[in-house]
């Protein structure tokens, strides 16, 4: 009997927690729920429940796909920690993906701008294109002024700030990045902390 490929997808970079259990390219179980400051409580019970419904345990998994941000939402660290630990303990193949790409996959519009608010008119943004049932990135994720950034594109963009990922559009895309050293995996913060910025300014002035 051919062994099936079991993938767990984890993303907690926004106020929505997204978890998906994919078997042979098909999403068998999933969770997409709003939970402000609550991902830390629910993530493990949700994973346990999804696995149980498929009669699986963590050790049965083959791959973990982890949404690594960008963003400043503290939740991003929950998913990365959990994904990192699952990958490490079971010696799994681990892939990272942009949480903006996951969000963008919700839409079937030709051009999608996924946005995570960063206050003061700024946001973490990524622009993606739907092409032949696959999602492709057409500009790398940035932290920028929302208006300026949108103006820099000459075509119409659909702006989205939430939406349940269509994971099948991403599984064979080049948006997945293989992690070579699990211990070095961290979220993609895209910018240094405020404390580091202030320290740098102090030194420069």
């Amino acid at each position, binding site marked *: 009997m051919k062994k099936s490929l079991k993938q767990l997808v984890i993303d907690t970079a926004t106020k929505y927690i997204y978890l998906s259990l994919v078997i042979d390219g098909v999403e068998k179980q999933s969770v997409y729920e709003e939970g402000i400051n609550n991902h830390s409580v629910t993530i493990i019970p949700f*994973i346990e429940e999804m696995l149980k419904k498929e009669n699986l345990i*963590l050790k049965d998994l083959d791959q973990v796909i982890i949404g690594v941000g960008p963003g400043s939402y*503290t939740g991003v*660290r929950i998913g990365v920690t959990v994904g990192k*630990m699952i990958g490490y303990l079971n010696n799994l193949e681990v892939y990272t993906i942009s949480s903006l790409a996951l969000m963008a996959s919700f839409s079937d519009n030709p051009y999608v701008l996924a946005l995570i608010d960063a206050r003061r008119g700024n946001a973490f943004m990524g622009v993606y294109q739907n092409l032949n049932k696959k999602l492709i990135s057409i500009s790398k994720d940035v932290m920028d002024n929302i208006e300026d950034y949108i103006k820099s594109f000459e075509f119409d963009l659909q702006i989205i700030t939430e939406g349940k990922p269509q994971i099948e559009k991403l599984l064979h895309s080049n948006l997945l990045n293989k992690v070579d050293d699990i211990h070095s995996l961290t979220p993609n913060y895209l910018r240094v*902390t405020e404390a580091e910025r202030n*320290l740098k300014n102090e030194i420069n002035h």
Partner: protein
Amino acid sequence: MGKMLFLCTKDWEVIEMYVLGVETSCDETSVSVVKDGKEVLSNVVLSQIDIHKEYGGVVPEIASREHVKGITYVFDKAINDAGLKFEDINLIAVTKGPGLIGSLLIGVNAAKVISLNYNIPIIGVHHIAGHIYANYIDNGMIFPLLALVVSGGHTELILMKEHFDFEKLGETQDDAVGEAYDKVARILGLPYPGGPVVDKIASIGKDTMHFPRPMIDSGDFNFSFSGLKSHVINVHHNMKQRNEEINVEDYCASFQEAVTDVLVSKTIQAKENYKVKQIIVAGGVAANSGLRKKMKERITDIPVYFPKMAYCTDNAAMIASAGYFQFLKHKKSDDLLLNGQSRLNLEG
């Protein structure tokens, strides 16, 4: 009741219990394996002190980022150092609070993954219970005992009538003693963390300045250090304004004498009041040499224990030890909804 009986049988006592401790409440990422609450098989501590030093204190966002970065490495090293596999662990004990919430959540979630992965029971442990049980690793506990908990976040006197039974007799009404040390160090331009440096300098000075001993005769077991802190800072400021030369050694010694006088005196009052058989000092400030010396000089009728230096600062071995006794006492573990809590009451 069935479960309780099982745990109380002789069988249970002879089972070797390996506890995996996890501590990420502030700026140390630590994992440890401790057998039966006492025998430390490994204790890995990834300290961030050098990173936070530049900022003069712990930056919560940086601390959280560092915990995520180091988390799997620390688990890997701790289990290998112990010569065990995760399957050999009988209980996972993780600090659930109090502390920096972003930091706590990393340890709690990593620990929950191990619990689910290997079907090992997990319990959330109070950070201060950990500091108290740091003493059990090298010493024993004779009840009733009195614990003086002194750190950058805590100053409290706790009475224990038996294992894992805590009664808070009193606590600081404002600053923790460690905070006051850090502030004094900053005024003097000494590097972070200030406590150990002030302690070292104080050891070669004399108490020439006679700072006040706040609340020393208040009749209760509470503390207050913000007034002393302000007073000490004002004296420094005024001397500078008058261009008087400050004898740093004597200044530090005077501050340290004032602080330790209050701590030791309140401890003695509580000792008499509650007729305890043992005193233990816990937390980062338990490493302070002036406090160690004065405690041992002034209390000679009952044993006074301090943890080994390595177990004074935050570490996971103390959490594993506390977790062991918490499990024996309450005979139940937590479920996977376990969460971190920035504020948490020790008395439960």
